[in-house]
C-alpha cells in the first residue's frame, strides 16, 4: 500500500524539480534563438544555431569524441567500480572505512586538482601519456568510478548475502552463484552507476582542462572555447544535443531494464 505524500511536501518537491530543470529549459530556448548572442529570453525562435552546430566540424568532432570517451569510461568504470564495491562490502579488515574513503576521494577533490595532479604525475614519471587520449581516459575513469562504487555499494547493502550462500550450498560454483544470483539482484545499482559514469564523463570539464589531447577536444572544452571567443548560441545548440544524448541514454537504459524484467517474468 503506497504512502500518501503530504500536499505541502508534494508542492515543495515539484517546485524543487522545476527549479533544477529550469536551466535545461533555458539552454534549450537559448539554443533556439534567432538572435546573434547567447541570451535569454531568446529573440524569436529559429533553428539557425542548431544547423550551425551540425555544420561545425569542430563541434561535431568534439561531440563524437566525448561520446566515445564517455562510453569507454562507462565500461571501464563499471567493471572497476563494481569490483571495488564487492570487495568493500565483503572483505572484513581493519581500515575498510579508510579504504572506502580513499576510493571515493576523487569525487570529493576538485576536478581541477585531479586533472593537474594527474598531468604532473604523468610528466614526472615519464609515462608519455600526458595530453594523450589515454591520459585523459584515466582521468575520466578516476573521476567516474566512485559513482559506480557508491551506487553498487548501496545495492549491495540491501542485498541479502544468504541468497548467494544458498546457491553455493546447492552446488553452484562461486562464479555461477555470482552470475545467477548476486548480479541480477544488484543489476539496478550497476546500471545506475554506469549511467552516472557516462553522464559525469560526458560533461566533465575540469579534469579535461589539463589532460585533453591536442586535436581531440571533449565537447565541454569546445563549448567553453567557443564562449571565450564567440558568444554565439551555437554553444547552447551543442548543449541541446548533449542534453538530448544524456536523456536518451537514461531512457534507453530504463527501457532495457524493463524489457529484461519482462523476459524474466516470462
Amino acid at each position, binding site marked *: 500500500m503506497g504512502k500518501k505524500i503530504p500536499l505541502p511536501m508534494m508542492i515543495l518537491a515539484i517546485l524543487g524539480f522545476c527549479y533544477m530543470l529550469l536551466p535545461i529549459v533555458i539552454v534549450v530556448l537559448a539554443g533556439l534563438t534567432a538572435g*546573434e*548572442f*547567447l*541570451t535569454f529570453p531568446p529573440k524569436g525562435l529559429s533553428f539557425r544555431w542548431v544547423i550551425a552546430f551540425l555544420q*561545425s*566540424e*569542430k563541434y561535431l568532432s568534439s561531440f563524437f569524441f566525448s561520446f566515445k570517451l564517455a562510453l569507454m569510461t562507462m565500461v571501464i568504470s563499471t567493471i572497476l567500480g563494481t569490483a571495488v564495491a564487492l570487495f568493500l562490502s565483503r572483505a572484513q579488515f581493519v581500515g575498510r572505512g579508510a579504504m572506502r574513503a580513499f576510493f571515493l576521494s576523487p569525487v570529493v577533490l576538485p576536478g581541477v586538482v585531479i586533472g*593537474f595532479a594527474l*598531468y*604532473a604525475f604523468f*610528466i614526472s614519471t615519464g609515462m608519455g601519456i*600526458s*595530453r594523450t587520449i589515454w591520459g585523459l581516459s584515466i582521468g575520466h575513469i578516476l573521476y567516474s568510478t566512485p559513482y559506480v562504487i557508491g551506487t553498487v555499494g548501496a545495492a549491495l547493502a540491501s542485498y541479502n548475502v544468504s541468497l548467494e550462500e544458498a546457491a553455493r550450498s546447492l552446488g553452484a560454483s562461486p562464479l555461477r552463484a555470482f552470475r545467477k544470483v548476486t548480479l541480477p539482484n544488484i543489476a539496478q545499482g550497476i546500471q545506475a552507476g554506469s549511467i552516472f559514469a557516462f553522464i559525469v564523463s560526458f560533461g566533465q570539464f575540469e579534469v*579535461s*582542462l*589539463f589532460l*585533453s*589531447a*591536442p*586535436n581531440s*577536444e571533449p565537447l565541454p*572544452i*569546445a563549448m567553453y*572555447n*567557443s*564562449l*571565450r*571567443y*564567440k*558568444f*554565439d548560441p551555437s554553444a547552447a545548440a551543442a548543449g541541446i544535443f548533449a542534453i538530448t544524448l544524456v536523456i536518451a541514454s537514461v531512457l534507453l537504459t530504463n527501457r532495457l531494464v524493463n524489457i529484461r524484467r519482462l523476459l524474466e517474468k516470462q
Partner: protein
Amino acid sequence: MKKDNKNVTRRSVLKTGLALSAAAAVPSIFNINHAWAQDVTYDGKVFDAGGATLNIGEWGGGWEEFVRSALTNQFEKDFNCKINWDSSFPWFPKFVTKGAKDPVYDIANWNLPNLTQTKNAGDFFLNTDEVRANVPNTANCWEFAFASGAGVTWAYQPYVYAYRTDRGKAVNNFRDFWAARFANKRGTYGTENGLMHAFFMATAREFGKDQYDMNAAFKALEDAMPMKVSEFTFNMLSLLERGEVDIAVHIEGEALSLKQKGVPVDVWQWDSHPILTQTKTISRYAKPMQKKLAFALLNRTLEPSFLNAFGDKFLWRPTNSKATITASLAKEGVMNTASATEAFWVPDWNFFVKNKLEITDRLNAIFGL
C-alpha cells in the same frame, strides 16, 4: 679462492679510458637538444619537414576554425607536417610543470600578462632578437610588436569603452566611466580576464601617481561599484545590446562589430592607449625540426595575406606595416601607419605579475566574488 692475475697493460688502460669516455658522453647525447636547437635557422622558404609534428598552444572555438582554414591547413600541406593544436588554456601551468627543457608547445599564442608570467618563471622562450633573425616578415613589423621581449606580436586591438549612444552624450574621457549617469550600468570583467588587468593598470595610471599606484586603482574601482562583472567580451556585447550595461570595458574590433549590426553603440579609445595583443612565442628548447617549423609558422602568421583575412574576420589590427586595415575599421578612421602606432602604451606587466595575487584578492573582494 681464485685470484685474478690480470696485469694492467697499456692496451687495457686505453680500453678502460675509451669506455669511460663513451659512458660520459651518454648524458650529453640526451642534452644535445639545446645545442641543436640554437643552431636552427630559417630563411623564409618552404621546406619538407618529413611529416614532423608541431605542437601549438592556440585559442579554440571560432578562432581555431578560422585560423585552420586560413593558415594552418595550407601550412601542413606546404611543409609536410602535422599540427597538434591544443586550445585548453591556460598554458602557464603546463609550461611550468613540464619544464623549459621539454616544452609543452613549440609555438604558443598569448596575451601579454600570461606570457610575462611564464617568461618570468624560466628560460622558456627565444628572445625577440633570436626570433627576428629567423623570421623574415618581422622586418616589416612596427617596433611595438617586440615589446614583450619574448615573442612577436602579430595582431592587436586598442582597449576602449563601448557605450550606448542612446544614453546621453558621447564618452570622451577615461573618467566618464565613473559618471553618475552610468551608475549600476557599468560593465567590466573577472579578475582572470586580460581586459580587467589592463583596466586596472590604466585606472592606476589615471587616478594615482602612475601605473604602479595600486591603492588609487582599488579606490577608484570601489567607487565604480556596482558593476556587472562578466567573464567574456562577447557576453559583454550581449549585455550592451540588451541595455543591461550602458558602458563597458572592451576592445575595439568586437565592440565595433556590434555597432555594425545596427546596435546604438560606439567606442572611445582610452587616452593612455593600452593595447590587447596576440603574441606568439617560440620555445627555446623545442626540437630542431619543430623550431624550424615554428619559425615558418610565425613567418606565415605575419604574412599580409593572412593578417588581412584575419582582420576582415575579427577586426584585429595587424602589426605588419605591409598589411592593410580591414575596410570596416578603416571607415572608423583606423590607419596602419607609424604615427598611428607610436602612442601605444604597454603596461608594466612585470609589475602586474609580481603583484597579481594581491590585486586578484583585492579585486575579488571589491567585486564581492
